[in-house]
Every structure is written in C-alpha cells, then in structure tokens.
C-alpha cells in the first residue's frame, strides 16, 4: 500500500496488490476508451477472417486464376494478384488462418504452461523453485527470435515444431510474470490465513491465488500473442517459417518481395494485415484496466 495513504482512506480502499480489482468485471466493455475499441474491432475482424474466411474465399489459395502477375487491385481481384497470378484476397484469408491459428495455439500453450509452472514454483519446495527459476531465467536470456532460429535449425519448420518453437520461446516470459504475481499473492494476508488454517498447497494455488491472477495473465496472454505473430511472420519472411505450399502472412510478403519495386499490393497488403492484427491487439491490451507490466 502506498505510504501516502492517510487514515482517512486506509480502511476504505481495497488493497492495491494484483487481483484486488479482479472482481470488477462487467463494466470493462462500457468504459473501454476509443483506442481500445478500435483495437477490439481490429482483433475481432482478424479472428473472424481466420474462422469464417476460408468458407467465403473466392478461390482456392493455390489456384492460378489470372495470367497477370502482380496485378493491381480490381473488382475481380480486390487485393490484386501475386507473383504467379493467384488471387491475393484468397491467399491473405488462408494466410491469416495460419498466422492467427498458430499464434493463438502457441500463446495458449505458453501462457498456460507459464502460469502452471509459476504457481508450481511458488507453492512447492525450494529445490523445485530454484531449478525452475534458474532454467527459465536462462531461457529468457536467449532472445526469442534467436531461440526460434536454433530450434528451426535443429528440428526444421514443420507446423507442430513451429508451434512448439513459438510456445517455448515465450513460455519463460509468461513464467516470469506468473511467478511474480504468485509471489506477490503468496505474501497476501488471505493466503497466509489459508496456510495457517491448514489448507493444502493445491487449494492455495487453485482457489486462493489463481482467481486473482487470471486478469493480469489474460493481458499478458494478449501481449504474448502479439509477439508470437510478429515472430512467426518474421520467420516466414526469412523463409524459415511456414513452408510452401502452405503460406502464412509472413510467407506471402516473402514470396512477393520482388513486387516491391512496383509497389505491388501483393507485398504491401499482407504486411499491412500483420500490422493491423498486432497493433489491434496492443491497443486492446493497453486499454484494459490492470495491465501487467511489460513483457
């Protein structure tokens, strides 16, 4: 609690520790500032594209439908055509499915295992805690893109391994956040009260601590999702990510890079697609109350 709290306020304000405001739900949507609403719309748009896009895409992603390469935007090809004369709209839709799907799955894996490990380290004995912290602190020291390169070199870039790579690259960060939240919570008097009462460790972790971690961890999950999108697109851009014939948004930029000289929409639109997705997530997360500190 801030040392400036006077006796006037002391008995009335709730603790400012993480989780204190966790129960304030429901009002969030209404009070979301403009930037947050814009972010929400952008995120929802891309999630919708990834989910239902493939059902309404005009062409198969691999179908060569025009004899004009790097075609401009037109009524027939609203996003132009790519370096082989394929429909960019369809390719972006399917690319978004890969990007959003992979990143979402990897972010869920990273955040969930980070939270579980963070709780585990807090409630278990010194040795488990020490080993987990040391190992994951070491992992965090390998910059995630570098780690991904090492993983790709060793295991290649099949989809399951890309997923694993992305999740592993970001699990250490999630662990660090979860652990610091859990450590803060574990010195809270209500957790001590539970301990003195004789509650088991599992109860303390799941019932006393977890509910108060969910909100900050969700915000952290959003950030992690954004970084994973950036990393996976970057890998594909380098030709080390999703391999042809499949293509995520990063691959689309790479394969159409030769159109850059002419400013072809085929190279700019996928790049803008990635940017709108990540900016949207960032705007949304930032405007949520109770944001955890930086990633």
């Amino acid at each position, binding site marked *: 609690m801030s040392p400036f709290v006077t*006796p006037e306020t002391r*008995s*009335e304000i709730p603790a400012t520790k993480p989780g204190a405001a966790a129960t304030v739900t429901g009002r969030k949507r209404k009070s979301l500032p403009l930037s947050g609403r814009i972010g929400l719309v952008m995120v929802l748009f891309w999630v919708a594209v990834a989910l239902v896009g493939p059902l309404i895409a005009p062409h198969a992603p691999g179908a060569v439908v025009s004899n004009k390469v790097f075609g401009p935007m037109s009524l027939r090809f609203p996003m132009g055509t790519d370096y082989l004369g394929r429909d960019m709209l369809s390719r972006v839709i399917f690319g978004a499915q890969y990007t959003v799907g992979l990143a979402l799955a990897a972010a869920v894996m990273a955040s969930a295992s980070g939270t579980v490990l963070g709780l585990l380290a807090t409630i278990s004995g010194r040795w488990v805690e020490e080993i987990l912290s040391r190992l994951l602190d070491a992992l965090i020291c390998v910059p995630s893109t570098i780690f991904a390169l090492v993983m790709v070199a060793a295991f290649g870039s099949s989809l399951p391994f890309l997923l694993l790579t992305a999740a592993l690259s970001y699990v250490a960060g999630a662990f660090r956040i979860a652990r610091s939240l859990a450590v803060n919570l574990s010195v*809270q008097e209500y957790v001590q*009260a539970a301990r003195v009462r004789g509650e088991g460790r599992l109860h303390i972790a799941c019932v006393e601590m977890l509910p108060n971690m969910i909100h900050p961890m969700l915000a952290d999950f959003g950030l992690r999702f954004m970084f994973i999108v950036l990393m996976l697109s970057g890998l594909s851009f380098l030709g080390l990510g999703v391999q042809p014939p499949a293509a995520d948004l990063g691959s689309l930029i790479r394969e159409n890079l030769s159109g850059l000289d002419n400013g072809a929409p085929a190279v700019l639109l996928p790049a803008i697609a990635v940017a709108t997705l990540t900016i949207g997530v960032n705007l949304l997360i930032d405007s949520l109350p109770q944001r955890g500190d930086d990633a």
Partner: protein
Amino acid sequence: MSSHQVRVSNLRVVTSDAADRAAVLVKDVSFTIPRGEVLALIGESGSGKTTVALALLGHTRAGCRIAGGSIEVAGTDVLALGSRQILDHRRRRVAYIAQSAAAAFNPARRIMDQVTETTVVGRLMTRNAAREKAVELFRSLALPDPHRIGERYPHQVSGGQLQRLLAAMALMSDPELVIFDEPTTALDVTTQVEVLREFKRLIQERGTTALYVSHDLAVVAQLADRVVVLNSGEVRESGPTMRVLGTPTDSYTRSLVAAATGREAVCALRREVAIAASVGVSGRGDLSEPLEPLLSVDGLTAGYGKVDAEGFPSAIALRDVSLVVKRGGALGVIGESGSGKSTLARALAGIVAPAFGTLRLEGQLLEARMERRPRKQLRRIQIVFQHADAALNPAHTVAHILSRPLKLYFGMHGTERNERIARLLDLVHLDRSMAARRPPELSGGQKQRVNLARALAAEPALILCDEVTSALDAAVGAAILELMAELRRELGLSYVFISHDVSAIRAICDEVTVLYAGQVVDSGPLRRLDDPAAHPYTRLLVSCVPEMRSGWLEDAPATLGQLGTARLDASR
C-alpha cells in the same frame, strides 16, 4: 485587511469524473483563522479534512476540483491565482507538513537540498543564507548535529527527526500559514510526544498561524485554540477547543468524543467482568488443581535472515520471550514499531519458525512450523490480521470465505453449513444478506467482522489479534473491541491482543506484556500499567498516550533520555 489570516467561505469540492453525477467531497465549508491562532480540523475517514487543507494551497488531488466558494490567505484570493502565482503562494505564504515525512522526502536527494529548494529557486534567499537559516531551524527544533544533519539522505535519519526536518522545511520562508496534516499519526507514541512538544513551542515562539488536521482529539486538545468538526464534507460544529471537546452540542461530535473517551468507560466495565471471571476461575480452581494455562511460551527467540552456527538468525526480532495465556484470558502485548510484536503473532501462528523456545497449547507441545502442526491444533489457534481487506480474498464471496474452515475442520456441507454461516454472521452482528457479497463491497469495519467470523468458524480456543483495530476509525474500532469483549464473554474465548495502542489494550485485556526491542520488559495484570513500580518503559509508554485535557503535553514526561542508553538505540 482583516485580522483574519485565513478566511474560507462556502468551499465546495467535487469529483470531476462525471459532470452530471459529480460526488461532493466538501460541502459549503466556512471558517476563519485569526492571526497567530491554531485551528484544528477534526474528522474521520472521508470527512474531507485533507481536501480542505490542500485547497488552501490551491491544490486538489487527481480527479477532484474546487467547484465554488472562496479562500483567502493573508489577503490573497487563492482561487484567483494563476499557475505561476500559485507556485509563489506555496513558496512564500502557505507551508504544508505531510503525515508521513518518510514518504514526503525524496529518497534520492540530500535533506539540505530539499529543505532549501524552494527558497533558493524562488529567489527568496541566497543559497548560503538559506543554509544558515535551515541550520538555525534545525537547532531550534532540537535536532541532533544541526550543522551536518542536512548532508544526510532521508533514510539515514529516524522518523521523528524527519518529521521535524519537514517542519523546518515548512518554516524556511516564515509563512503566513502552516498546515499540519496529521503530522504525528505515523509516529510511535513516545516519539509523538517529543515532536508535538517541539511543534507547540515553535508555534508559540513564532506566533504562527496554523491549521492542524487530525482525527485524534487528544492531540488536538494540546495544540488548537479552536476546532472545526467535519463529517462527510460538512461542518458539524465549531468553537473553542475546550468548549467543543468538553460540552459538544452536535450529535456527531458527541459520538466522536464518546469514542475517544468511551474506551475508558468500557475499560472500567471490562475490569469488573475480568475480576468476576477470575473469581469464577479461582472458584473452580479450588476443586481441581490450578488450571493449566491455555498457551505457554517459553524462551522464544525468533528472527529473519540466515541462521548462524549457534542457531541465531541474522536479524533477531524476538529474544527469549516467555508468556502465558490463561484459559479464557486476554493477554495484551504492547510495543512500538520494531518491538517484535508482529513477529510474536507470526511465531505463535507458526508462520515464522522460532530459532529457540517452546510453545505449548493446553499442555501439549506445539510444533514450531504450521506445516507440521496437526489440523486440530491449527483449528484451536486462529489469527486475525491488521489489514482487514488484505486478509480477505477479493475473488471470493463472504459465504465462500466462511465456508472453508467449516468444511476443512468439520466437514460441513449443504444446509448445515449455510445455517452455520448465517449464525456466524449473526454472531458478529452482520446482516445475513452479506453472505453473497465480496470483500471489495464491504466497509473496513464490516471486513474486520468477517475476519472475526472466519476465525470463530473454527471454534478456536485462542484468537491471535494483530493490531486488529489500528487501521480503523476510532468509533469503528471501538465497536469491534466491544464485539470482541462480548464474544469472549459468550464463547469463553482467549485472546492474544497485540497492539501499539495502550487504550485498546486497556479496553479488552486483563493481562499485559510489554515488549521493547524484542524483549519482554514488563508483564502482569492490567493494573500493572498504572503501577508506579512498573518498568520505566511501561510508565513512559502509558504516560505518552495523549489525554484529552489541555496542559497534558506540559505534564508529559520530559525526555526519553531518562530511560538510559537502550532507548537511544531505537532511534536508528
């Protein structure tokens, strides 16, 4: 212009978030302070007293704004000042002394630079003149080593000294008005006396006009010429200090005065009960052998940090503490900050493992660490923490919070459990509908009642109370104490009541133990507090509790030096 140094009329402060539904924090407050007088602004939590004080400086906290009225200080219309002029107003005319000096000083800068900052920046004095003046003020505030104390950083100076340094900072520009905002609330009572005395002398010597903001009627009685009583942003009563505190006419003021003096009454009542109880106990004691104590602590040494070869922790908080809690008894543990009283509570609860010493509950050896204690023993000792809201999980409903011990200790389910929860709420005088609420929706007093109910749910023999009323307003705290006395009578509970507040101890305990720097310096029945043969520190502690009569400050013990060298260590 007028003989009034300060004139506030119809001041109105509102929250500025939603224009249509702005909450009013201060409603049409008016008062004047004649030159050279001290006016006290009295109020509890949320009374708006600090908001009024800050308004005199032309300042409102984030989210608030002044919506009406006028403020005049030494002939200046404060609300009409531009942003440049406001700075000048604060540098020359009005000075502010905050509650916590430890927080009000910048930790990264030397004290002297901070004391002289605005006089130098505002070109009121040259740097050298300012330094000389500061040293002179340090000396007149009886600060040690006045020439060099300014070269230190805030963390190198004790709390009481920092509070005086803050006063020196305020007086640098010889302001027309000094605002004291609860300046001694964060201090220990023995330090408070010293600081109050210096403040009073300074005010008298300089003929300072002052506004003294406080919730503590006894402190106010020592310093103020007149008082204004605030409640929910409105003036309830004002007048000369002794008239208002002696014969309050307003109902709210009466309740405040009653809460402050009422403890004495409760205390008297409690003494009788205790005597009656002890008669009862000894009556039974005649039949069987003297009752075994509920809890006995023998040679307890505990602390934090690495343990050395002989088993002593690097920072020892408690040294060789022994005490006994009688069945049905209430033991008060008094101590100031750093006395180790919180460590005692944590060691008894098994949160901190002691380095040495044994604990016995009902004659049975109690494991040092709570993890090793059988559930039955855990159930018999419950703890209630100081911060009512930090002790309740904000994610759970009151019903859930109360149901855990019932399930854990008694395996209760379904309607049986719900009925028990309802009865527990009755027991602590909370409405049964509270069961569905979550802690953030409750007031401070209600939260502390839920904490008590949770402890009671375990049907314990002993409840450890760690400063349970310190964070509450006097009236709310008094009600909690009353409830605890009632519960003890009805359920035959025992308490270990840990507090820095002598009057709270008087109100509820029948035995006392005095802790100083981790050691027991005195112990005995409650009347030990008034025993002339008690340990000098006990007498000092008791005599430092402010009383609501004028002239108490002058009668209070002269110096702490009387206590010898041990005392001096404590000032870090």
